[in-house]
């Protein structure tokens, strides 16, 4: 079995664990979630009540295994039930409206931050003790800041006071979302400050990690040998040190992704960005349990998928892995 197939199986196991946790949480928690929802939304119909009971397992319709199976079937059809706060919209349709915003913003900004951070880490690792090492503690300060607080500060300085960027929202009100110039222009303009937040907040982490891996790699014999051969510096840095240091950096990228996504999602709230984070806030404030659970699943699946992509890149980038793939 090839490495990638095995990793796919691993991520399927992880996804199944997430699904199962998601199924059992409402059944294990104290209190009656359905009644809490009904008290908050008196306009729900009795059929919605029964649907909620079935989903949250309150009225115990059928055995638990029967419920579990029905739940897995529903999720596999991307059916996450009916939303209660924006009844009768389906949860899936709400997710479909918000996911593209988040994926575009968080995805692009994360890749940019990773690229810049890694490049800075290479430079800091190669020129140890240089000025980049001096800025590092400053960058750590930004890294230690919650994303949403950095967002508040940037919003205050660059939007409220300096009027360089718009104050929140995903696009100028009144525009109809679609593939036309006005809208795209406005959407890009509105995404600049949120993207900047992600880049500033996460760049130090990538940089520090890459710097440390570079330092360790530079200590290896083959780098010394390359220098002893009289190879030019740029060749030693890129072909010998960076090439090898990138693999652990990529692995770290996969593992840290969950944190970045979590931080970015809370940040959306500050910008009133029409993504999944704002949807999550609405779900939390209105006790909209079906929506919260669906968002958890969607974020988890996205992170698992991104990890799988990282694994594929590692296989392509690592000659040892490629050789192994061939040998199997």
């Amino acid at each position, binding site marked *: 079995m090839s490495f990638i197939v095995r990793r796919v199986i691993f991520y399927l196991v992880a996804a199944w664990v997430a699904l199962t946790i998601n199924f059992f949480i409402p059944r294990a928690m104290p209190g009656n979630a359905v009644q809490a929802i009904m008290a908050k939304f008196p306009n729900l119909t009795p059929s919605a009540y029964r649907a909620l009971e079935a989903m949250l397992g309150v009225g115990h319709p059928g055995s638990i295994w029967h419920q579990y199976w029905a739940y897995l079937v529903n999720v596999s059809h991307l059916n996450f039930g009916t939303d209660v706060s924006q009844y009768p919209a389906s949860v899936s349709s709400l997710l479909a409206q918000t996911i593209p915003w988040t994926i575009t913003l968080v995805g692009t900004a994360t890749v940019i931050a990773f690229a810049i951070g890694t490049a800075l880490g290479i430079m800091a690792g190669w020129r140890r003790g240089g000025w980049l090492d001096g800025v590092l503690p400053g960058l750590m*300060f930004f890294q230690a800041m919650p994303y949403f607080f950095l967002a508040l500060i940037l919003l205050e300085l660059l939007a409220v006071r300096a009027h360089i960027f718009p104050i929140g929202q995903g696009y100028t009100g009144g525009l109809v979302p679609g593939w036309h110039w006005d809208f795209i222009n406005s959407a890009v303009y509105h995404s600049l400050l949120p993207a900047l937040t992600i880049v500033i907040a996460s760049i130090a982490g990538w940089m520090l990690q890459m710097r440390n891996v570079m330092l360790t790699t530079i200590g290896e014999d083959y780098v010394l040998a390359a220098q002893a051969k009289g190879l030019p510096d740029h060749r030693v840095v890129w072909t010998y040190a960076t090439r090898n240091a990138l693999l652990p950096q990529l692995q770290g990228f996969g593992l840290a992704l969950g944190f970045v996504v979590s931080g970015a999602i809370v940040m959306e709230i500050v910008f009133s960005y029409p993504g999944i984070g704002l949807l999550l806030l609405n779900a939390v404030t209105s006790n909209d349990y079906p929506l919260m659970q669906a968002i958890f699943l969607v974020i988890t699946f996205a992170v698992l998928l991104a990890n799988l992509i990282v694994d594929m890149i590692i296989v392509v980038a690592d000659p040892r892995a490629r050789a192994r793939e061939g040998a199997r």
Partner: protein
Amino acid sequence: MTVALPVSAEPATVPETPQQLGLWRRLPTKAKVGAVMMGVFILAAIIGPLLTTYDPSFQNPAPGLSLHPPDAAHLLGTTQSGQDVLSQLLVGIRLTLELALSVGVIATVLSVVVGVAAAYLGGIWDEVLSLATNVFLVIPALPLLIILLGYLPQKGQLATIVVLSGLGWPWGARLIRAQTLAIRGRDFVAASRETGEPTWRILAVEIVPNEVSLIAASFVNTVLYAIGASVALAFIGLADLTSWSLGSMLYWAQSQQALQLGAWWWFVPPGLAVALIGTALVLLNTGIDELGNPRLRKAGGAGAGAWRGLRPTDPTPVLQAAPPRRGRLASFLHSFSRSSLLDDHNGRGGTR
């Protein structure tokens, strides 16, 4: 080491042993700065609430005290309902640190138990525990925390501590497992096994004390995670919002439009406190890393030889271990992990 140290009534006159003095001296500057910053915040958490002249929840109805900018009476100004921001901040630092340190202790104990058990029991136990660790590493914690706390009717401090601890152990467990694998093959462990020491004693006396620096690093990391997660959770309203923590301060500032009203003194102090505590912890951790891994300090020097066995991914020295012998089921499970990619065909582990 049977020499009794002079223990006197005046500890100040007892000369520090050279070892103790050396440890502080050998600490990289980063770690020292981090430790001092952290000390200041812990001090503020202990004595701060005693110094407050106002009840942080007291809503002063006096005219002009709504959103009052900082002045002599209210050093950090007031909130919209006339509450003193400084009093809230001092109480908030205490509550947030209490929570984060509790989570740090509980989650670190969990990760030591899981990591040591996995490595020491080995075989199928190791693979099952490692699989669980890897699964919980890859599932993003915050959204899961949100639904867990969302369903809880009471979202008090204790509930948050339990939930955060329950999800905070995998990072530490992963590192500690790797370190334990390396240590259990050492001669001194074999020797104590030969002398018939019980397993619990080998674990408690021989293995765990040798992992103190790694455990310290993972504790610092866990505290960092707990602060970040608890503040984010409170910010979106999943906390006890009637008590003052740094997160609930930010929640009220955001929900009462502090930004739009231009009341920077309301949301900057709690956020800055979180950022500074976080910076202190990151500095402390980087310092611990450098202390343990000389390569991060000086390149390829004489001391580097001892660390040649390190894989570049290891943040703190995790000694190179002979790969564990695995049974058929265990090696089947292992083949699904990312690290299996770098195993050699003949069963030798590691990247080299």
